[in-house]
């Protein structure tokens, strides 16, 4: 029978301690994640996420329209999206499109017609969506920070101009 040297025993013991330590960390991580998940984000972060989700949907709808004439409209929405993502608190880790997928989309980003991101959308649908978005913005200013209020108001003004421009192209 092969004897186990004292040195290898000690090494094994050290590895065992390391394994236990790693296992301990692994057990702690889910608990920390659960604790973080249980803490609701502040209302402003939730609103930004909602706005991001709505803008992602709007960009997708403009992309589905597949019209060069609408490209500047989509680009302005993409600029809104980029700025909103920039305003998202870093620790929320939600600056990626995938992470905002769980947020409830801004209700203004739903076209009134039956068109969805997967089907062709009409200019009339886009105009109605822009109108709804612009009308919603003043109501989203309650209780948010001054800087976010300014951003939302500015986005709303852009959407109001979009609605007018799309009306004229009908």
């Amino acid at each position, binding site marked *: 029978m092969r004897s186990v040297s004292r040195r290898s025993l000690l090494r094994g013991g050290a590895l065992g301690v390391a394994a236990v330590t790693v296992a301990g960390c692994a057990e702690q991580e889910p608990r920390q994640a659960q604790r973080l998940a249980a803490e609701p984000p502040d209302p402003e972060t939730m609103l930004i996420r909602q706005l991001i989700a709505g803008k992602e949907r709007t960009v997708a709808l403009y992309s589905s329209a597949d019209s060069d004439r609408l490209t500047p409209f989509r680009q302005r929405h993409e600029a809104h999206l980029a700025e909103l993502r920039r305003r998202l608190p870093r620790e929320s880790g939600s600056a990626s499109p995938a992470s905002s997928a769980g947020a409830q989309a801004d209700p203004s980003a739903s076209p009134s017609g039956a068109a969805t991101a997967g089907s062709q959308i009409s200019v009339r649908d886009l105009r109605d969506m822009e109108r709804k978005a612009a009308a919603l913005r003043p109501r989203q200013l309650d209780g948010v920070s001054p800087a976010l209020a300014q*951003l939302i108001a500015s986005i709303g003004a852009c959407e109001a101009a979009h609605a007018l421009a799309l009306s004229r192209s009908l």
Partner: protein
Amino acid sequence: MTADQGLSTALAAEHAAVYAYGVIAARTTGSLRVTATAAFNAHRARRDQLRALIAARGDAPAEPDAAYRLPVTPSTPAQAVELATLVERGVTAAYLELTASPDTEVRQMAALAMQECVTRSYGLRPEIEAFPGMPADVASPTPSSAPPTPPS
């Protein structure tokens, strides 16, 4: 910024806009004059609303200056449009400042007024900015342009 400061800034911008559109309406004809007159009335209505808001806070609203230095003298229709769009841009910036007010109702009024300015401007010149009222660097939103100023 306090609500009162923002209200005073917006009122000053509306005073200047009323003056500028008065000049534009006097120097234009046809549909442009109709448009300028409608804008004059719209800005006058907002001006009166701001006056009332300031008075309701126990303050005395500022009176307009006797005259304002216009950035463009509207001698042609193109110059009239240029001046009108500059006016709308300046008033939009003033209302953007007011949307940071601690008073929610004031914020909402300012946001709606911004939408009016931007759509009026689009009616004159079909251009759209992604962030109306804000400077190119959105990171520090401050008024990007000033409305006509009173002569010094």
